[in-house]
């Protein structure tokens, strides 16, 4: 099962540190060079800031990913920890954007050698030693990684909790 990052709207204050950290983590240049080179600002996390809710939204690394199914060029692959976009094969047809139920896929120009718009999404900062950059910078502790072990452990601990509740009254 792929790990994924989930946000807690009750904690998020919409400060967008995660959005900038995400861009920073997917760019070789540092901030100053990025500014001088006027690189595209293409986060893989989308901040919703409305009256009803304020929260970041990003990919849930689905096991049965609609984006993988929708891609005519086979550019979206589910492999290892994440669902990944092989940007060289993407021609920007946006079917994945229409397919994603969460709106986690974005098509735009990203820093790097490919100068045309391509699909890009959260890749859990694979290869970054401190893990997802957004989780690390969030001042409100509103982002959280659900790792493979969590996904096994949480249901078990909840079952144990509900079992004890059931035992409690009958």
């Amino acid at each position, binding site marked *: 099962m792929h790990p994924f990052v989930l946000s807690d709207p009750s904690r998020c204050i919409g400060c967008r540190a995660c959005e900038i950290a995400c861009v920073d983590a997917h760019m070789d240049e540092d901030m100053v060079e990025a500014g001088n080179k006027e690189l595209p600002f293409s986060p893989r996390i989308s901040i919703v800031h409305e009256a009803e809710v304020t929260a970041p939204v990003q990919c849930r690394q689905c096991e049965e990913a609609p984006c993988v199914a929708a891609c005519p060029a086979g550019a979206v692959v589910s492999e290892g920890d994440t669902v990944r976009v092989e940007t060289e094969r993407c021609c920007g047809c946006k079917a994945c954007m229409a397919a994603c139920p969460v709106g986690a896929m974005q098509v735009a120009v990203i820093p790097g050698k490919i100068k045309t718009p391509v699909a890009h999404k959260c890749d859990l900062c694979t290869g970054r030693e401190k893990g997802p950059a957004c989780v690390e910078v969030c001042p*409100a502790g509103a982002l959280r990684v659900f790792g493979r072990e969590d996904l096994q452990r949480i249901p078990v601990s909840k079952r144990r909790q509900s079992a004890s509740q059931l035992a409690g009254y009958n």
Partner: protein
Amino acid sequence: MGAGDCVCIIGTNTTACHPVIGLGMMQAKRNGAQLIVIDPREIDLAREADVWLRLRPGTDTPLLSAIAGEIYNAGMVDVESVAASTEGFKEFCEGLAKFDAESVAALSEVAADDIRRAARCIGRARNTAFYYTMGVTQHTTGTNNVLAVSNLALLTGNIGRPKTGVNPLRGQNNVQGSCDMGALPNVLTGYRSVTNDDVRGSFEEAWNVTIPAEKGRTIPEMLNAIEEDKMKGLFVFGENPMRSDPDINHVEHCLHHVEFLVVQDLFLTETAELADVVLPGASFAEKDGTFTSTERRVQRIRAAVSPVGDSKPDWKILAELLERLGRPERYADVKDVFDEMRMLTPTHTGITYERLEAGGIQWPCPDESHAGTPILHVGNCMRGAGKFVPLEHREPAELPDAEYPLTLTTGRVVAHYHTATMTRRCFGLAGTWPEELVEVHPADAAEYGIADGDLIELRSRRGVATGRAWVTRRVPRGLVFMTFHFSESPANILTTSAADPVTGTPQLKVCAVAIRKLTEESTSVESLSIEEHASCHIA
């Protein structure tokens, strides 16, 4: 803060303007504290609030007075102890009569029983801390609004104890410090009035110079003085009035008119472009010194990188100017400046650079063994007795009418700072918020045929600005919100310079505007020339 406590915030979008304090408030809420939010917009904290009073902008004083009235009538006031430690209590209570919940409900468009619920929360809470910022002060009734808050705090005994107090959240990193340092026309350091002979005397003796006894001109007065040719020279230091002051057309006219204008800043701002001499200052990371935070905590800043190009730390520039104006003092480093200052300022005498190495110290700190003062007015009010001030309600200077049917209020977003001179030159911050987003209620947007993301034009009696519409329920019907961060969408062209009679603070939070959709010129057909795009894609 936890169970039994209450946080009351008015006129502050804390999670946007003071994010870390905002987070603290949310944590307090999670620890069981009650949260009262008084703001016309549905800001994030409003969502978390136990009581959210969605008032009509400009009706802060009557609302706070009504709350005070309800607390008083419900008998939740320890009358003896309050009367004993304050002045003007009786007249104040009589003055509350006209602010009954029902009439204020109609005036401020807040339900009467919401006012009562807020009153009960504050009345019953052991401790209530009040927080406010520009939302309260930037009105023609700014002073009254602050006094209304202090009346309420005095009435409920919420002063001089932990988890209480009237806490203005200062907008900028050293706005508290610059006031402390006497950068005001009427006071010297430590808020000691220039008209006070002994105070003036101590400075005159230290600097062996005579200082005028009457107070100087405020910014609006200086601008008018320039217009009337009473003032010929102006030095703008680290400010961009061409964007942050209200009624920009008026400011522009004055800055053009002044004979000699000096501007010292990091970038060539709109104001600097009009200057006769521009001096390159240094950023916080290129110089040593101290800032004073909103809780009066003096903290060190340290140079991390050398000044960019030929720029110099600002204190060196000012020191050199003083020298050229015949002043004898020579400052080897910034510590000497601080020491000279603290000897002249009783509240800062105990603060030294050595002590600051271990961390910030909150003034007043009379001597070097003193630990600083986390909380003011402990025991009793610093001025002796707490002073109640009976208040009247005054409508804002400019209300919506047929020609300008909507109310505009201005403010900030978390990603940007003030005129964004710095934040728009940060790749990340500019990236998250690249352009002005004008918040418009869906119903108003529909009425003017505006869809989310359309370019719209806002027009007031003073000028016109454009911006991209953000159709959201964060604003109520009839109110639009925009920031003053973006030079392409200068909100302050629209705002009125009508100001508070006492402080001269302009009413940036309320002015009347009309909006209309601008038809965007459709992006032209991107048919590249033949040669160009035959090759360009085959990378």
